[in-house]
């Protein structure tokens, strides 16, 4: 009994530290994301299937493409989530923030947008060694088409009687 509780305590202690390392810090009342875990996973899986089909990736291309693409998507996602937090802060604390704090937020927002562009550029350089120029250009078209497909589904879903 004591052994089981000791094991569970060690597990929870590591999980607590592991969770804070993995999700990033989050202050009270501001959730990291409104996405459900299942939904986010489904969207990611759909994106992989969509892009693989759109680019007609060969087995060799896919082996190298996805690790690089996923790596930079994670970096871009962290920047995007930080942007969402900044937007939320501006919306919710518009009356409380000082001009200096607004300026700091402005600079941070611009820096994050510049960082996103830099990450796309870096990813593009890495992918040049993996994909031919045509497929690399088609990647960006595929990303936009995927977003449009999602919007189309969501719009159609909104129009359906409930």
């Amino acid at each position, binding site marked *: 009994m004591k*052994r*089981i*509780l000791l*094991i*569970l*305590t060690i*597990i*929870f202690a*590591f*999980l*607590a*530290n*592991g*969770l*804070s390392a*993995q*999700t*990033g810090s*989050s*202050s009270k009342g501001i959730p990291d994301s*409104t996405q*459900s*875990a*299942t*939904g*986010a*996973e*489904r*969207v990611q*899986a*759909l994106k*992989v*299937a969509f892009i*693989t089909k759109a680019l007609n990736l060969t087995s060799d291309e896919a*082996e*190298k493409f*996805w*690790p*690089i693409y*996923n*790596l930079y*998507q*994670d970096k871009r*996602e*962290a920047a995007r989530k*930080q942007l*969402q*937090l900044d937007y939320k802060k501006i919306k919710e604390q518009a009356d*409380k*923030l000082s001009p200096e704090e607004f300026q700091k937020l402005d600079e941070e927002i611009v820096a994050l947008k510049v960082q996103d562009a830099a990450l796309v550029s870096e990813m593009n350089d*890495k992918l040049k*060694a*993996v994909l031919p120029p045509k497929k690399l250009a088609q990647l960006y078209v595929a990303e*936009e088409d995927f*977003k449009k497909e*999602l*919007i189309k*589904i*969501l719009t159609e*879903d909104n129009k359906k009687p409930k």
Partner: protein
Amino acid sequence: MQNVKHLLFLLCWLIFIMPASLLHGGVGDSLLPGNFSRTPKQREVRNYIRPCVYTNFYSTGSRAMKSSSNSIPSLLITARLGNYKFITSNIGFYCPLYTHTSFDKNDSSTVNTFHLLMTINGLVDQPQFSGLEKQHKLYKTGLGLRMIYGWNSKFILFVDASPYVVGDKYDKQNTQQFRLASSVVFNWMINPKFSLRGGFTKTFLFGNRHYLPMLGFRIGKLDSKCYFNFQLPRIASINFQPTPKFSWSIYSKAYGGLYNISNTDTLYLFGDSVIQFGQSGFANGIRLDFRPGPNFSFFVSSGFSMRNHVWLFSNSYNKANHLKPFAPFYTGTPDPAMFVNFGITWRFGNAKKSQGNYLMYDIMDLNNTMDPGDNNSGPGNSDIRRAAEKKEMEKVQYKDVVDLIDDTDLY
């Protein structure tokens, strides 16, 4: 009185320790005033493998024990033991301690990953002999480390060390013994549909101390609707994944272990106070896996356990057997019996994206197959989602994509 004490201890743990440890992980700025205006920094996720806790329960029906030899001592022990039933339950855990992602020096388009994980395992094994007055409750607890290195988009090196302590609750002080199980495996992903594995393992899975080669292959993608997996000496299975939430498999896998038991039953008549109990068999059955989401899954399984063996070893006789398998003073062969097996897996936290990355899928499969503690009862591959189909687009909801869509996308 003892039960009341245990219950109070458990309640104190649930009320104080568990919430305290969870809250500590979740709130970094708890001492700062509530109106302190500082935007929390969103950090990039570091690990590919998520922390995982899983539990497993396995039980067979009662069956006759047969002696493998016609010698009188063997027949006497068989008569004393009576019918045999086996129940085991275990809890396992792994958690990444350190992950490093880098581009290959020679080829900057190749991503290499290094993973260092901690593993914890606790197991209770209850062999039940109808002829013995008091049944033994054997335990095994361990803390281990494993290292996984994936490189060149094709290769994986897996190294695991699982030290643990075994003992018998009947006589903890005298039966406790330290053991070490370990494995080194090399995986070559020839292409996403075909993988080869080879390596070596020091294992007690077959009821004795063995140093065995490991050979295996997989045909079919890990996120496809069907794949076949053959990992000698652990498991052979054919897996079907009709939907992301449900999968099933037909399998044959080894089970067993080597434990210390108190000789208060005087099964060994030559003075040992502690003897060793080894058991092994093959569980052949069907398993149904349910995966409601990426964080939680459970399975149920049933079938027949066959080629069962039970051994008893003398501790003092085998002390000189430094590296060789132990020599038994008794070998029993229980009849085949039906078994039931079920388990639950929880996965926590976020991980780096790995969908479409088949080498990472192989890393996860290897990590899940080589379970902590050398029990061959791992958490399953619920961290590898089956590839999406177009019809799943209809289930997408706004909250799942709110981060991806900009207002400029609407024009």
